[in-house]
């Protein structure tokens, strides 16, 4: 019983630390993005709240909490209220399988630096990514607005088509690591990160993950110019904040997964594991901000062409080649 309680306490502690860290990081990634985007456009970015605008995320949070939560008259009440939680929740849940560092040994007890080491961790990640589509679709549908509806239809089409490329691009990594567990995948990169062995898979993964997170240049579901703001047009206050938060948590998930699958996860010299993971997440996010500052939005047919006619065939060819190389070796 005592053992069980200790284990439970440790688990709760880990969950608490990860949730706090992820939410805090999400808030400050917004600031990082606004600052960096400003610099890319020869502006300054937010600098009024606190020094260097460091209190800006808190100010934004207070503003969102204090705003009125409006619901359209024709909206489907329950689904409308529920949809933002799906997006944020699934994004947060993905972090359960991301390994943060090597096992700790405290008082003769082995504490893995991951909330849960699932042997089907990868499938779990994709399951969560697929579920987050529901948040977008339900949110858009329940809003009873044509813009939200169009946005969510686009979102569903885009996320489902890019999920294929996303999944297929990871198959070579699984073949190399010989496991679906994220912990084992990081272990398999002890010698060299997989980005050196699988550059094509890395590119496909990164592009389709960006499409999955609905960011510029893949932000068709929330295209401001065409759809107001797409599937969350009708949301306001903290419910909009949940969508926003979910998006930034999803970006972190993306950074963490890119780090785990291709950049060696928490592995790195000198610094402790969690710091390396953090550094790699921030690196990936910075790259995404750079892409956002540079590329315009795709047209819908270009988006579908890129996914179905280029990324998926390329991923399939990559799997075949990897297979031949592995058998040859």
């Amino acid at each position: 019983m005592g053992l069980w309680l200790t284990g439970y306490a440790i688990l709760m502690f880990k969950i608490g630390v990860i949730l706090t860290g992820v939410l805090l990081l999400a808030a400050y990634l917004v600031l990082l993005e606004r600052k960096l985007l400003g610099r890319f456009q020869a502006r300054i970015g937010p600098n009024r709240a606190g020094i260097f605008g460091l209190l800006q995320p808190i100010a934004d949070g207070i503003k969102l909490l204090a705003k009125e939560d409006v619901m359209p008259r024709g909206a489907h009440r329950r689904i409308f209220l529920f949809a933002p939680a799906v997006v944020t929740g699934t994004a947060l849940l993905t972090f359960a399988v991301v390994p943060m560092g090597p096992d700790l040994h405290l008082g003769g007890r082995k504490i893995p630096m991951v909330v849960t080491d699932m042997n089907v961790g990868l499938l779990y990640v994709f399951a969560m990514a697929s579920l987050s589509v529901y948040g977008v679709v339900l949110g858009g549908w329940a809003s009873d607005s044509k813009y939200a509806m169009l946005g969510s239809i686009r979102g569903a089409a885009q996320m489902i088509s890019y999920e294929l490329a996303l999944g297929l691009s990871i198959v070579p990594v699984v073949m190399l690591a010989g496991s679906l567990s994220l912990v084992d995948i990081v272990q398999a990169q002890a010698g060299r990160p997989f980005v050196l062995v699988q550059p094509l898979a890395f590119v496909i993964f990164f592009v389709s993950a960006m499409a999955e997170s609905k960011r510029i240049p893949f932000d068709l579901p929330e295209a401001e110019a065409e759809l107001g703001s797409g599937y969350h047009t009708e949301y306001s206050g903290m419910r909009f904040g949940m969508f926003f938060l979910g998006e930034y948590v999803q970006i972190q998930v993306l950074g963490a997964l890119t780090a785990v699958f291709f950049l060696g996860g928490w592995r790195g010299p000198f610094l402790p594991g969690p710091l390396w993971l953090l550094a790699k997440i921030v690196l990936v996010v910075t790259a995404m901000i750079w892409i956002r500052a540079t590329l315009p939005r795709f047209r819908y047919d270009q988006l579908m062409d890129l996914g179905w006619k280029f990324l998926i065939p390329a991923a399939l060819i990559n799997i075949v080649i990897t297979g031949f190389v592995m058998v040859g070796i």
Partner: protein
Amino acid sequence: MRKWVWIVHSLCTGFYTTLKHIFRGPATELYPEYKRPLPARSRARIILTADPDGRERCVACYLCSAACPVDCISMQAAENQQGRRYAAWFRINFGRCIYCGLCEEACPTSAIQLTPSFEHADRDIMKMVAEKADLQVNHCGKDGNYNFYDHAGVADAFRPKGGHANEAPPVNVRTNMP
């Protein structure tokens, strides 16, 4: 193949361009900390200037009020002991003013002028209404040495007949008889 070279090339150019801007530094001027000196002829708050003698220029001719497209200028004309017209009261509603400068163009005496000072926003709308005392200044504004009465051609206590600029001295019509 050609297409691919083109795609990679345009991607690289794009990313290089944005990267360059990071090192260029921001072009933003932080407003309350740094106030850009505005050109003397930029149009903002309206003043009523004085002539070089220090007397008020405004002759209450209503031309500015008539020219104003948003009808934000109102006044009441009066006449003093020396026979000069002046505005008994003069009121500009800055809540309405669009700073177009038409009043300044219409003014025959250079009395009403727009200045570069623009920081007079207020939460209380009644504070946007400026009375004559708020508008009057004791300098000539942009028109340094123009005095309307030098050119008016109207004799008064300060300038007798022939005392105006470019005006010949009065002629005794009787000596000029043929």
